């Protein structure tokens, strides 16, 4: 089962416009050495049997700082420099190469990666490391291709027999990355101080307070001649609080702050207020009644809608899911047909660096296959227009649109960047909520739900399983027709994609951003989703699974007697 998770655990950020300093690819030593090694090896690679027809290197050169705090103490504190190389090698031909999925399913073999020594004066140690990794990757690619070739001779014809790869266009680009600077000691002190807010709260079973910064450059070079240097700038402060009900159900509240400067961080007063609010919500959740399975009107608040779009539609319009026969292909043949309410248009635009001053985690200039990012209209007024494409063509879509993404060590596939919902007609949030109450009455339902916060969920795209989704709200209100509301727990949203998006009745004008990390075949990638609040005529709610273990017998050490 392919479970595609979207979790708001990490946050990446990129800056809209950098102070431009002169940056020339020909001056970049990593690019020089990687290109030299490509040129040297390709001469031989092409003559092999099977031929190795494409090589690409991704090299991350990043400074990483992280601190984690709990209970007035540091649990983890790291400061390191990451210098990591990844090699992508393709053996065979554009039509059929080593990356093809075998008829038994699986593949997605990990890519060769390695920590790299410094380049130094002569670059010899670096080049030797590049060579070593390339040799291994080339051997792996040939072995994989031989399996693919054997497999193709005995397997059934694929429904979409598009080539396995299309050469990306040659690109030359260089942008320096000004390093991020934060007062780490001050942030550490702040985290230590606010971590004490959980003291005397017996319902808090655990908590964590973190800050992480990644800053540096990403280099890409391939055998087409593409040479790229792009910036990586990420910083996030976050906290999480969790507890357990007497019957064993977990509940949690968390918050993230994505920033690029010290000034953008919440000050102590703001952070304290937010944590206190989260503590109140957590206590309410732990004492809340459990939701019952039901199908009723639902109001998805903007951030929850952002996750909803990502999970329910976004993953199903990723290009490779239209190609592999193991996928459900919900939308494959629906280009030009209505797939959502006509109120909605959906665009994925990784070139968007921020939205209303909020940094977008899904921003990037070039994807992990060296293709320039560009906006892609997926749905226009409810009509499906296209797919997210990597360099693996599909029927009717022969080139990449800059969405080939993957974590280090994972082969890139089509993934989302910044997924944006745009409504053709909106109302104020207050009017939307009023409409929600009216709809509950109209349907003569005892209540409806407002989904305030969604941590993530998964969608099943494999044909072995129903083409359903399941989302996990973390804060849900049961709202009665007279407007009364109460927190409930244990309510998951379930449904099927084609039906769900046609249930959209009205849309508010309160667009907001959800920044998260998305996990799929090609690993974890930073993503953002922008959406307004929406009213859905009906969604199905089911119970959340819970553990059978009770909370600890004794109260926390500092919660006794409270």
């Amino acid at each position, binding site marked *: 089962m392919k479970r595609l998770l979207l979790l708001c655990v990490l946050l990446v950020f990129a800056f809209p416009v950098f102070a431009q300093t002169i940056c020339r690819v020909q001056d970049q030593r990593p690019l020089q050495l990687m290109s*030299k*090694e490509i040129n*040297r*090896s390709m001469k*031989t*690679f092409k003559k*092999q049997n099977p031929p*190795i027809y494409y090589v690409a290197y991704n090299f991350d050169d990043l400074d990483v700082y992280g601190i*984690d*705090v*709990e*209970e*007035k*103490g*540091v*649990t*983890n*504190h*790291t*400061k*390191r*420099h*990451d*210098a990591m190389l990844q090699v992508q090698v393709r053996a065979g031909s554009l039509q059929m190469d080593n990356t093809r999925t075998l008829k038994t399913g699986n593949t997605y073999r990990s890519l060769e990666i390695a*920590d*790299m*020594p*410094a*380049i*130094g004066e002569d670059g*010899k*140690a*670096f*080049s*030797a*490391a*590049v*060579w*070593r990794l*390339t*040799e291994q990757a*080339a*051997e792996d690619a040939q072995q994989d291709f031989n399996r693919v070739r054997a497999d193709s001779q005995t397997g059934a014809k694929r429904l979409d027999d598009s080539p396995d790869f299309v050469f990306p266009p040659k690109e030359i680009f260089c942008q320096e990355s000004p390093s991020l600077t934060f007062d780490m000691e001050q942030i550490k002190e702040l985290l230590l101080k606010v971590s*004490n807010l959980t*003291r005397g709260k017996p319902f808090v*079973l*655990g908590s964590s307070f973190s800050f992480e910064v990644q800053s540096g450059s990403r280099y890409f070079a391939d055998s087409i001649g593409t040479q790229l240097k792009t910036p990586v700038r990420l910083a996030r402060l976050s906290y999480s609080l969790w507890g357990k009900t007497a019957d064993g159900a977990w509940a949690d509240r968390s918050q993230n702050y994505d920033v690029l400067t010290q000034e953008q961080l919440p000050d102590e007063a703001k952070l304290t207020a937010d944590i206190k609010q989260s503590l109140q919500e957590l206590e309410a959740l732990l004492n809340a009644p459990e939701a019952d399975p039901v199908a009723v009107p639902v109001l998805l608040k903007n951030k929850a809608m952002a996750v909803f779009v990502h999970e329910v539609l976004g993953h199903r319009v990723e290009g490779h899911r239209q190609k592999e026969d193991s996928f459900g292909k919900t939308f494959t043949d629906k280009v030009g047909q209505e797939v959502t309410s006509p109120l909605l248009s959906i665009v994925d635009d990784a070139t968007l660096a921020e939205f209303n001053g909020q940094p977008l985690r899904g921003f990037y200039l070039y994807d992990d296959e060296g293709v320039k990012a560009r906006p892609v209209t997926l749905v226009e007024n409810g009509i499906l227009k296209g797919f997210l494409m990597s360099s693996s063509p599909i029927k009717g879509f022969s080139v990449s649109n800059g969405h080939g993404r993957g974590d280090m060590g994972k082969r890139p596939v089509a993934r989302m960047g910044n997924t944006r919902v745009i409504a053709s007609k909106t109302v104020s949030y207050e009017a939307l909520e009023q409409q929600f109450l009216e709809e509950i009455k109209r349907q003569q339902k005892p209540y409806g739900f407002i989904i305030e916060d969604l941590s993530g969920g998964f969608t099943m795209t494999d044909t072995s399983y129903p083409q359903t989704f399941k989302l996990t709200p973390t804060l849900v209100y049961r709202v009665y027709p007279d407007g009364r509301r109460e927190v409930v727990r244990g309510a998951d949203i379930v449904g099927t994609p084609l039906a769900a998006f046609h249930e959209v009745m009205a849309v508010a004008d309160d667009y907001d951003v959800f920044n998260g990390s998305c996990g799929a075949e090609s690993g974890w990638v930073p993503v953002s989703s922008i959406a307004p609040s929406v009213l859905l005529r009906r969604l199905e709610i089911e119970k959340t699974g819970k553990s059978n*273990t009770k909370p*600890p*017998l*004794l109260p*926390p*050490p*500092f919660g006794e007697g409270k």
Partner: protein
Amino acid sequence: MKKLSLLFCFLGMCGLAQSAALPDNMYFKAMRDEMSRTVKKLHRQGVPAPLFIVYKLENLRAASSVEASLGELYPVSQRDDKLNGSVMISIGTNKNDSLGYKHDSYSPRYAYAPEYYNNIAKSYDGIRQALWKMTDESYLFAAELYQQKEAYKRTKQEENETKLPDFMPSKQAHYVEEIQPVEKYDIEQLQKWVKQLSAMGKAYPFLEQFSVRIEPRQRDTYYLNNLGGFYQVSQPAVRVRLFAKFRNTSGYKQDYENEFWWSSLGKDAYEKLTQQTAQFLKELEPLQQAVKPAPYLGPVLLRPQAAGQFIHNLLVENLQNLNPLLSSRSEVDITAGKMRTPGQRVMAPGITVYDNPQVRSVPGSVENIPLGGFMPVDDEGAAAQKLTLVEAGRLQQLPRTSRPFGAKLSSNGHARFAPQSFPRERLTNVLVEPQVALSDRELEERLLSRCRELGLDYGYILYDFPASDDGIVSRAVRVYTTGNKRETVYGLRLANLTTRALRDITAAGNQAKVLWRQTEPSSNGLPKQSVSSPALLIDELEFVPTDKKPDKKPFVSKP
């Protein structure tokens, strides 16, 4: 201390409590306070109260490690100390407690192991919080174990031995040493060293990689139990790793490494490192030109490093976990050592083997090589005693814990508590001492002489010994009986090794080497067990060549 004494009286253990004060630091304060709360209040209706409670904290302290390959540095990582903790609870009575039984579930979560947390917050509050959660989970686990063990016992007939009490705690001991700050090394200096040392590999063009890594480490351990035992010890060490990758002339990809430990980097450290590196590189040339071996059955000379591993595989592993765990899943505890009978003939005469948890380095040695098994108080609070394991070829004393088995009931302080296991019988610093010690040359002459007797053209000298029963020897040299000819071989695979080989030791050398054993993956790379052995001449070992085919030639030559 008043609080602690009260605690012990509460348990009816006043007589066992030590008069020494607990160290005055955050770790012991947090352990003491949470222990006190646990003893007073942790009791679930229908479940026996905790009988034996153990808290253990390990502060894994790391200075920056440095590494370079072929003259260029890898990025330096800096990490703060990492605090890990374990909690063990048994319930019931001394006669019938919850331990000694393996949980019925197949899930690794339910292995015979204590609760274990990584990355505990380094604050009083953080430690209390972690201990609280681990204590609760540990108590519930003990309750499950207790019920399952009782149910299991009802399905079996009681043997004489099972009439022994489950738990016989010893007089509780304590040991406290001052925790020193981690030695501060000049990182730039160390970087310069590894750059220079790894650059020595450039003189060997066949090397695809040659890296040198220096890792200063320190592990501080804080232990407290509810019977009055406690200890605080610190283990500093510096790990040096030399690593090379190359292809031999027959086309096989080879990795070769040498790892050694020092107590600290002394004034002459760089000079010694240079010598070690030069020696390591010198060993690579014959390895690169190594020839394929033929099947072999005959005498083998194990150099000290190989001898240490040999002793570990055949003797140490059979002298640990001696009291088999009960289990409804299997009547055989595969983790239990087989040498359980004092007086049993286990080795050739002329070799004495000790286990000495009280020493930090090999007695009489002037080398800067620490022993990993220093443990003055064991993990059941008993004073750890030096044991004579083997004398005149026969098994003498066995490591014992507070869980009696066989004829002797009392512990001799060899209970070791690990993230993967509740306390069981473990060895610490195993020291192999021959009655007659020969020089390297004499040993080699003995080897060749024995080969001639057996009509063999050559014998083998091994510089390392495989950790697994069918492992490959990294460095093996064939020594011919005529003409002083020597050949290094590759792909020599161990075959049919049994404990019989211990009785085939015919001679031993006069220079021991310390082998560090990694017994706990989570111990910050600092092993908790060492074997010190001289070279050993074994009358008969069997080897076969590897079945592996040569690797493909590189597509492109090294840049």
